[in-house]
């Protein structure tokens, strides 16, 4: 399927040959590893995934996260983990993993009808 979107704002400019010189670019031998960043926005809250960045080691990743993701006081604590060390469930298994919980409504407090007189339960 040939897709051609003609909109020339950010992002969808057709990449036909331009007049720009295409001198080869010297590529880095090793790209800096990718890290996932988690930030606690304030005391008492969970760390939340905010994005990723590149760094050569954990210490640098934390500093980079500080500079990149907390410029507007978004956080008070940072976790970083190298992306390759993150394991995720397979979306293809979603039905098997998550659907079986759907009919266990008795796990929720609203399942139980109690007389009005019972308060605070």
């Amino acid at each position, binding site marked *: 399927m040939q897709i051609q979107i003609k909109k020339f704002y950010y992002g969808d400019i057709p990449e036909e040959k331009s007049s720009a010189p295409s001198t080869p670019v010297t590529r880095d031998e090793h790209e800096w590893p990718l890290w996932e960043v988690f930030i606690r926005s304030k005391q008492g809250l969970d760390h939340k995934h905010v994005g990723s*960045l*590149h*760094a050569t080691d954990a*210490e640098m990743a934390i*500093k*980079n996260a500080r*500079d*990149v993701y907390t*410029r507007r006081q978004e956080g008070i604590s940072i976790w970083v983990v190298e992306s390759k060390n993150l394991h995720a469930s397979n979306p293809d298994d979603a039905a098997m993993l998550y659907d079986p919980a759907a009919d266990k409504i008795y796990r929720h407090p609203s399942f139980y009808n109690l007389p009005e007189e019972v308060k605070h339960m």
Partner: protein
Amino acid sequence: MNAHLDYVLHLADTTLVLAQRNSEWCGHGPILEQDIAITNISLDLLGQARNYYQHAASLINTANPNAQADEDSLAYLRDEREFKNPLLVELEKGDWAKTTLRQFLFSVFQDLQLKRLLHSTDTQIAAIAEKSLKETAYHIAWSSEWVIRLGDGTPESHSRMVTALNEVWEFTGGLFVPAPYELQLAGTIAADVSQLEKPWTETVSNVLEEATLSLPGKTFMQQSGKTGIHTEAMGYILAEMQSLKRSLPTATW
């Protein structure tokens, strides 16, 4: 009064000129993450400079209610000979080795100076020092890591660090030679910088050692900046920075 004002301007000019130098990296850094990092340092220093200039302006305006000095008139409408920053901060930004090394050498000095300024009899200076110290701690951590990383990285980065060290070193001595206004105020309003060389050398040599770099031996030290005699680079900094403001000196922006 004059020594007091000169001293505040000295602190202001120093942080402004280094902020200006570091801001030259914005959009040209070696990788986005570090482009953002050096820009943050530039913004910290610029913030400090503004605090000092505002304080200087209030000293001027208190002494002479018609003076109408403000942070911008002080930063933009004074001439080169009136700028009191040490030479170290005006040197061209050079490559990433020179920029990070200069930042490191300066930040270690600044940290020691600010710790003494916490006890300045000028409470405004003490308050600015307290706020700035947190920033400086981060600048030291960031820049020392780069000095170590580059010194002990590849043969190329090591040799660039050696070159940077040779280039910058002779401009560090001036930090510890008090200008007349510092001498006059040392221990009251100002920090006695002559006492800072020893602890500075200790910290610097530890980091250089970890970076597999050797501390340069005793050498002649350039030391004129704080009294208003600068390197040739300074004229260009001011020409660039002040050009627009000076073309319409009464305009507000």
